[in-house]
């Protein structure tokens, strides 16, 4: 994607408003972190169960079902807060390798999460198996990469 697009992003109303405000960026950032906490919890409960290190007595399908809406709520919060943060410093992001790592991993993490949960809903695994362990570990690795790269956007300038 061309630099022109990122420059256009910075010029949007939201981008301008967030960039010129003293408070908006920090406050939105704080809510981005609240979204991280929510999403992290909702994703980890299932992933740690899939790996077989937490809540082993609970059926995998039940955990998947009863955390699903919080995964959606977490992702929604992250996107709604992440977009204005991005718009306010789009050009900086364009030159930031961490940003591109995050943007490359994010869709993979989302797609993987949807796929795993859909598979569990269709055919609930009875117990922890090498397959569920691999799924849980992969999910944690993907989301960790998204989060770590996201944090590093602010450090690398």
């Amino acid at each position: 994607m061309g630099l022109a697009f990122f420059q256009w992003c910075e010029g949007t109303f939201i981008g301008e408003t967030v960039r010129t405000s003293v408070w908006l960026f920090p406050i939105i950032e704080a809510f981005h972190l609240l979204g991280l906490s929510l999403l992290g919890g909702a994703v980890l409960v299932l992933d740690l169960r899939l790996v077989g290190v937490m809540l082993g007595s609970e059926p995998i399908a039940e955990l998947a079902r009863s955390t699903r809406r919080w995964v959606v709520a977490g992702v929604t919060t992250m996107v709604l807060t992440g977009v204005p943060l991005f718009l306010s410093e789009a050009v900086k992001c364009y030159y930031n390798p961490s940003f591109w790592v995050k943007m490359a991993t994010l869709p993979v993490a989302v797609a993987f999460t949807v796929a795993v949960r859909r598979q569990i809903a269709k055919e609930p695994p009875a117990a922890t198996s090498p397959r569920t362990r691999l799924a849980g570990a992969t999910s944690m690795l993907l989301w960790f990469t998204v989060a770590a790269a996201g944090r590093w956007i602010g450090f690398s300038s």
Partner: protein
Amino acid sequence: MLEFLQWLAGTEPSIALRESLYMWPFVESVHVLTLALFAGTAIMLDLRLLGLALRPVPVAVLTSRMLPWTRAGFAAMVVTGMLLFYANPAHYYQNVFFRIKVVLLAVVALNIWLFHSRIHRRVAEWSRDPVTPRAARIAAIVSLASWAGIVVAGRLIAYNWFDCDIQPQSDFINWIAGCVIQPPTQ
């Protein structure tokens, strides 16, 4: 207190951490990313108490099987948090948001103590209820609100709007931050 923290800020490892190129961001990253584990699982327990998540899972199962993960996450938060504080102790001591965070941590500690010493003792009676007793739900709401406040305040510590060396500030802000303001010399 301030004098002690100023001395602490002058110790060798504190200076090294403060001026490090990669160590400080690394510790900070661990602190933030551990939120997903620590705050994440704490939020899930609170949402369960409110009957909004993990309804099929008995509360007692969560407090015995998930809470150890929460505690491990908290331990990592404390260790990394103390390192970050140690990197610039006198500065954080006079930071408004740091002070708000410490007060909220005290609120949370009291809430946890009340929950475990009073409410959770009788968990066997309501462990499987989709929605838990009123007292447990109130504890959950206090917990959610306080942790949210702690996360927000924690993030805002990074900003210097109310720092003592940025004057003039209102008397109220200077009082909250504990700024030592020299009276103007005549």
